[in-house]
């Protein structure tokens, strides 16, 4: 079965999800054709062709950064070639394109997919629902083409087989310039801003950290585990960390895989913002601190001792 994937690129860079899409497509065991749209595509085409069986390149500046144009062009290619599956990342671009495409083609669609396989000629996907608490298996209905959007980071592209496929230029099937949706500009997040809601690991500090001078210790631990430092409200009130690091009902709601709470008592307003974390570990010298009732693991000790010890141990394990 032939699977078409979208090669996603932004500001001159190919996105990792392109190769993850190829990796996902390979699980369906057949020819993988990549679609590459926009301008200045020669380099990208080379890189994608290394792992795809074929690359279709449409150079047309009217398509660049315009998801409406993307949707139409992909739609035209699919209607003509009728691949069994069209697959792309469930990225901000994918969320724009994939559902619209499924409507245009009257195709079944599965978004935010984390597993994919073929079963008796039908496509079976695995996707998470209820905010990640439940995984569901779905079998897509019979259709000429099915649309699938995969979650980034779920399909490893580490062991892709080299294919060195052919690169084919295709005339742009875009009928007219898209007027109802225009790309204006890329807006960069403010320099230095950290989005704690996106981090998998949060090293969260509370009033128990005692002094601003102790914060580098938390940063060091965060660096060692590849996490980000967040905090409770007093830490913001004391001006030790900026407002956008505050976890809680009047700060940010976070759901990291791992939340380490250092010197945080576990007040209602704080807990409401982090209790959705997959794993919570609390470090507090007061055994009666309410944070222990939401934590899976706890350490009753001075955080100023625990934090550096943990950093050292992690560095040791990594080296």
């Amino acid at each position, binding site marked *: 079965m032939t699977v078409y994937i979208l090669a996603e690129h932004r500001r001159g860079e190919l996105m990792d999800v392109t190769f993850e899409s190829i990796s996902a497509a390979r699980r369906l065991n057949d020819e993988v054709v990549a679609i590459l749209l926009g301008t200045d595509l020669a380099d990208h085409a080379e890189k994608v062709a290394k792992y795809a069986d074929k690359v279709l390149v449409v150079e047309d500046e009217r398509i660049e950064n315009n998801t409406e144009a993307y949707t139409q062009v992909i739609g035209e290619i699919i209607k003509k070639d009728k691949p069994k599956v069209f697959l792309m990342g469930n990225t901000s671009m994918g969320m724009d394109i994939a559902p619209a495409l499924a409507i245009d083609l009257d195709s079944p669609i599965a978004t935010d997919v984390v597993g994919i396989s073929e079963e008796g000629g039908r496509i079976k996907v695995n996707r998470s629902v209820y905010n990640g608490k439940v995984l569901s298996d779905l079998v897509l209905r019979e259709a000429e083409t099915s649309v699938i959007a995969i979650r980034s980071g779920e399909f490893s592209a580490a062991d892709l087989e080299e294919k060195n496929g052919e690169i084919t230029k295709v005339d742009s099937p875009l009928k007219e310039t898209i007027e109802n949706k225009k790309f204006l500009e890329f807006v960069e997040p403010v320099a230095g801003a950290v989005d704690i809601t996106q981090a998998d690991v949060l090293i969260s500090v509370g*009033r128990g950290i005692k002094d601003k001078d102790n914060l580098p210790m938390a940063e060091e631990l965060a660096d060692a585990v590849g996490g980000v430092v967040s905090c409770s*409200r*007093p830490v913001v*009130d004391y001006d030790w960390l900026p*407002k956008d690091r*505050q976890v809680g*009902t*009047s*700060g*940010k*709601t976070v759901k990291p895989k791992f939340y380490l709470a250092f010197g945080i008592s576990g*007040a*209602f*307003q704080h807990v*409401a913002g982090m209790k959705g974390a997959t794993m919570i570990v609390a470090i507090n010298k007061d055994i009666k601190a*309410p944070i222990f009732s939401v934590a899976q693991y706890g350490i009753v000790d001075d955080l100023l001792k625990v934090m550096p010890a943990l950093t050292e141990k992690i560095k040791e394990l990594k080296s």
Partner: protein
Amino acid sequence: MMEVEEGNFDEAYDVYACMQCGKCTGSCAVSLRSDLNIRELMRIAILNKNEDLEKHEEIWDCTSCGICTVRCPRDLKPAEVIIGMRSSLVEGGTIPVTVRDALESVGTNNNPWGRPKSKRAEWLEDLDVKVKNISEGEEAEYLLYIGCTASYDPRIQSVSRAAINVLTKLGVDFGILGEEEPCCGSEPRMMGETGLFEMLVEDNLTLFDEFGISKIITLSPHAYNTFVNDYPECAKRLKEDDVEIPDIELEVKHYTQFLEELIDDGRLDGEMMNEFSGTVIYHDPCYLGKRNNIFEPPRKILNIIPGARCIEFDRREDRSLCCEGGGGRMWAEGTGTGERNAIIRVNDANQDGANVIAVACPFCLSTLEDAHVTAGYEETMRVMDIFEILDEVLK
């Protein structure tokens, strides 16, 4: 409460009568520490420049204390204009994420705290006394309306338990609604969710009617205010739109008013209490004081407690400094920088020589409790709801 469609603030709120004197901004509880400038927002309303609202992040700084409305020399309602502006932002979907989550949770869980409905009555588990549950068919003269914050926040749950102990000791015939208790809608209304508020008014009046409830005692001044002032007005408007609403007259009292009556009837006095030791300063909540002119009842209760030395803030009664807990501020930090009002308040209390700050509102308790720790008074000062003080002293 008024429906505001984009571009008609002028009609809805009579804003043309505004002479831009600036008394609203001058009185505002947060204007010193945030960009909130009500006079400017009034001018925007007059000029009908709704399209600018999204840029005015400070619209979410308003604590809805209501002082601007109290002081307006033209009897306008600037505090309502802000709610109107929030409404149009809610309509447009451009609101702070935390506010959105709180409103969404009212819709799905019947409380703004994102907690399941099934856990609303968990605070009852640590109680020694048995309390009637009106939703299970038990009959009682009064409904004790607990409210969302006092149901879920562990610190404030202690007030709910104190209330049960005290009312039981005083032989009051009361019951609660347990898990069936709904959100009163005050905070959603203040956050501009007009539609949700109307739905709650309709549902709640129907629920009260179903359980034969006509007398309500509230823990929170916010619930008190909305039942007394917003519900009748909203119900009237809904009826005019042919919505079926039961015709019930609610007799609603804040618990301090109810206890004052018990004092007047000789059912509560100092003889019934053990000695309290402490210098107590009472913090007027805006929704009792400024918004409803209820100043005396809480003071009367504190004054009969033997051993309690009662003192007063310089800024008290209708000049009381707002704690910044209302108007959705539980879920929005606002643009403010510098010292929180709650910190100023606990510092004032400390300077005045108080070692107990007495409050009569769950939001005041939250903000002042937090502030007294932040300001370093954890060991030397207590922030207590009047119900908690009574629970401690009643024999």
